[in-house]
């Protein structure tokens, strides 16, 4: 059900995403990119912008950038050019950032996102390379500059304004992150700052073809905040337009504490970056063979993998999408599916039980190996333990890291499937609970569960539930 406001206006959203590349060295010098807490350790004359220094392009950074561009279906430009983006700020040692403007590395790609069980294609305008700036640190009365980060390679991924809701934006961002991690191009961690996102939001009347005035929102550092910022901004702009006023084109910042955006600078105060081609670097020429070589190195990407999982393992699309979020999780799933011969069960166990114990992006730290999970499932399907007992075993596996077989034997958790034993237990309970038996036969069918519970208690939970049901039904129907 749309609100009147939603009826009238539609949001037009575009995202500019920056990701740090996981190269060993910086983009234009040999300094290490490794995180270090001491300031100004990974610095050299080049990334410090000393007089007389010149940039030299790190080819590995180009490899990584191209991989991501290919993974999001972009066209790689055979020739691309670096450009200087000129502005003054203490964390920018040269007084300009080497980036790309005309002729970026790659253009015209797309990713698919899932919303409301529908697929939507989000088009990507461009992917280009640039260097990161250092970091300003503010003290009580002075500010300091840490250049460890200056010169770390970044890619910037700019979408067309194809996104319509905060949720879509979040899905798009998550998809990019997933692909960045799959290709090994970036850690894609917003909290650590190696994935950053600026959002452009504008509104227009539903019938309108023309775009409304947009606001750019910067400084958002989590997926949740991206959604919150967009939601707030949509409401803010709608209020302005409903009042008959104009939205101002400006840059705004997101205040995480208040969940609001506020103005940072207006169009008049906007920087004129005076872009021009970087004269210290020659144009980047990319041969087809280089592109094809990298393309062949791409792993199976999340969308392809999800489609394959759904088909190969007969998983619902929704489950498949969750299992492929992280490459390591997908690998874990396939190992467990193979070890258990039960792909559907394996999927369920991972999604409902395992992901409560370990998060999807840290599956390497799982206390339960995929092999052992597979074993556990096998024990269920072969009737050695019941599904309920399996949950207990799972918990014990988590703590002890032992195999389920060993735990079941050690703790005597084998399911009792001996008919004789079960019949004896059923008869014992029915004999002791004559009163309830009569009530049951008088019509109180709910008591069936009660009997089951008593039988389970008697057998320490180990009676095979299916067998119990079968025999109990028979016995209750018998004695008339």
């Amino acid at each position, binding site marked *: 059900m749309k609100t009147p406001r939603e009826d009238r206006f539609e949001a037009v959203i575009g995202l500019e995403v920056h990701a740090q590349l996981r190269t060993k060295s910086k983009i234009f010098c040999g300094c290490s990119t490794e995180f270090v807490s001491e300031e100004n350790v990974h610095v050299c*004359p080049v990334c*410090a*912008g*000393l*007089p*007389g*220094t*010149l*940039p*030299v*392009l790190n080819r590995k950074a180009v490899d990584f950038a191209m991989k991501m561009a290919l993974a999001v279906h972009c066209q790689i430009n055979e020739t691309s050019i670096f450009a*200087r983006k*000129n502005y*003054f700020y*203490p964390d920018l*040692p*040269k*007084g*300009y950032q080497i980036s790309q403007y005309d002729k970026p590395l790659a253009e015209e790609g797309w990713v698919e996102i899932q919303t409301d069980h529908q697929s939507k294609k989000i088009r990507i305008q461009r992917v280009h390379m640039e260097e990161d700036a250092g970091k300003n640190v503010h003290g009580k009365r002075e*500010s300091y*500059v840490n250049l460890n980060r200056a010169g770390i390679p970044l890619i910037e991924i700019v979408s067309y304004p194809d996104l319509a809701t905060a949720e879509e934006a979040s899905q798009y961002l998550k998809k990019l992150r997933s692909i960045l991690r799959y290709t090994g191009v970036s850690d894609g961690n917003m909290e650590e700052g190696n994935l950053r996102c600026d959002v452009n939001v504008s509104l227009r009347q539903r019938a309108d073809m023309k775009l409304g005035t947009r606001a750019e929102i910067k400084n958002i550092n989590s997926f949740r905040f991206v959604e919150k910022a967009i939601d707030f901004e949509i409401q803010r702009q709608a209020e302005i337009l409903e009042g008959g006023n104009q939205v101002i084109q400006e840059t705004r910042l997101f205040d995480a504490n208040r969940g609001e955006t506020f103005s940072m600078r207006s169009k008049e105060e906007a920087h*004129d970056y*005076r*872009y*021009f081609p970087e*004269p*210290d*670097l*020659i144009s980047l020429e990319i041969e087809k063979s280089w592109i094809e070589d990298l393309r062949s190195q791409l792993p199976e990407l999340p969308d392809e993998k999800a489609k394959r999982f759904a088909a190969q393992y007969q998983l619902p699309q929704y489950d498949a999408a969750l299992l492929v979020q992280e490459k390591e999780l997908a690998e874990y799933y396939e190992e467990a599916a193979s070890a258990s011969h039960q792909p559907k069960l394996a999927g369920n166990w991972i999604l409902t039980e395992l992901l409560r114990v370990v998060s999807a992006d840290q599956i390497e730290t799982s206390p339960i190996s995929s092999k052992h999970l597979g074993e556990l499932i096998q024990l269920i399907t072969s009737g050695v333990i019941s599904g309920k007992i399996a949950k207990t075993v799972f918990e014990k596996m988590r703590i002890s890291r032992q195999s389920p077989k060993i735990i079941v034997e050690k703790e005597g958790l084998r399911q009792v499937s001996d008919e004789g034993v079960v019949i004896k237990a059923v008869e014992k309970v029915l004999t002791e609970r004559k009163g309830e038996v009569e009530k049951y036969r008088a019509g109180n069918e709910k008591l069936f569960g009660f009997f089951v519970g008593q039988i389970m208690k008697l057998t320490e939970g180990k009676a095979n539930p299916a067998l119990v049901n079968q025999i109990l039904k028979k016995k209750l129907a018998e004695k008339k």
Partner: protein
Amino acid sequence: MSVYELSLSELSQKLSKKEISSRELTAIVLKRIQDTNAALNTFVMITEEEALADAKRVDEKRGRGELLSPLAGIPIALKDIFLTKGIKTTCCSKILSNFVPPYDATVVRRLKENDYVLVGKLNMDEFAMGSSNENSYYGAVKNPWDLERIPGGSSGGSAAAVSASQCIGSYGTDTGGSVRQPAALCSVVGLKPTYGRVSRYGIIAFASSLDQVGPFGKTVEDTALLLQAVAGCDPLDSTSANLPVPDYAKFFKNDAKGLTVGIAKEYFTEGMQKEVERSVRDAIDQIKKLGAKIIDVSLPHTPYAIPTYYIIATAEASSNLARYDGVKYGYRAKAETLLEMYRKTRGEGFGKEVKRRIMLGTFALSSGYYEAYYKKAGQVRTLIKNDFHDAFKKCDVIVTPASPSTAFKLGEKIEDPLQMYLSDIFTISANLAGIPGLVLPCGFDRKGLPIGLQLLAPHFKEESLFHLAHAYEKSTEWHLRKPAL
């Protein structure tokens, strides 16, 4: 003749034969500097201790029988634009007046490998912006031929020092003529190599697509030796050419037979000093006598060279000089806010001409003007480059005047920047096209002021320049005249 008046080539031989030690030579040269620097103001730093220590080291190496380069033990000086590790490098600007580099320029490293002896850093126009060496934070350089006149710029100190025998050879940089024009005005040989022939790493950048390191020598042969020592690809400079360096000595001949020389009519304009034109035309006749074929060529876009240069060079400079902001190194003004610090540091730290060019360049790149100025200038640059490409289909070398006039008086043009810019009218196109250019003495005017001849060749054809220049030099005596200091 005093020892310090000998050429690099001659001194190299004497050192080799142990007729003189490097330490002796260096001491003589240092004394010469001491005796003359007050009058000329060529040196902004004299590295006396380091020079004598380096000289001693070379003598010891020679004593052990080690094979040494032609430059070994030779006292050489560098324009204060080359980063020398541990030795102050100021670019003759207040904003770098306290800057001690933590690394050597590639050229400096290569000179060290050649066992050169550094006697000091040379005065220049601030940030290489100027044609008279009057824009220096450390005061103007005087022309050794007339102390009331300018030596040319921006490598005025480098040219004057060689001319006055304060060092046996020197290096400068040439962005619009800053090696060739002072060479002409001081009667020495000056070379701007092909763009990309010599590494720019560690040279304080003025205009990245135009800057090149250039040697000054007393003779053509000396200049070739100085180029040989530093030329070649550098992995630290992405714009340096990955091409082999020829053995330039192989190309010296005593005649110009087999060479076709082009004369471009656009380089013989009104406004040139009559005596300059006379000397240049005489030189062309001499070259004909040496066996060269003389033809007419045309470089039709020549009139656009100066405006094209002053858009591209200032635009690149406005960006290259953004790093001088008081944050990391150099001069920092006292201020309460960030913006105030930027404004005061750069306002106080930069001289007038530098600020003028930064503003010009910023304007040429600014929103709304980029297409009309910077982009357009880039397109005209291509036309100028193509002019040379076409002309060189018909000739091997183009001969032109080097400067429209001989050395003018100190203070004469400093108040008129545009007039000053026109000093580079003959040299500037070579930078835009990236081709190499060499200037050598070809006469003197009535007042005894030097006149220079410029030779231009296609990309990476420095050997053609050396061939013709050496033959001309051998058949004349201009290079033997020394200033009376």
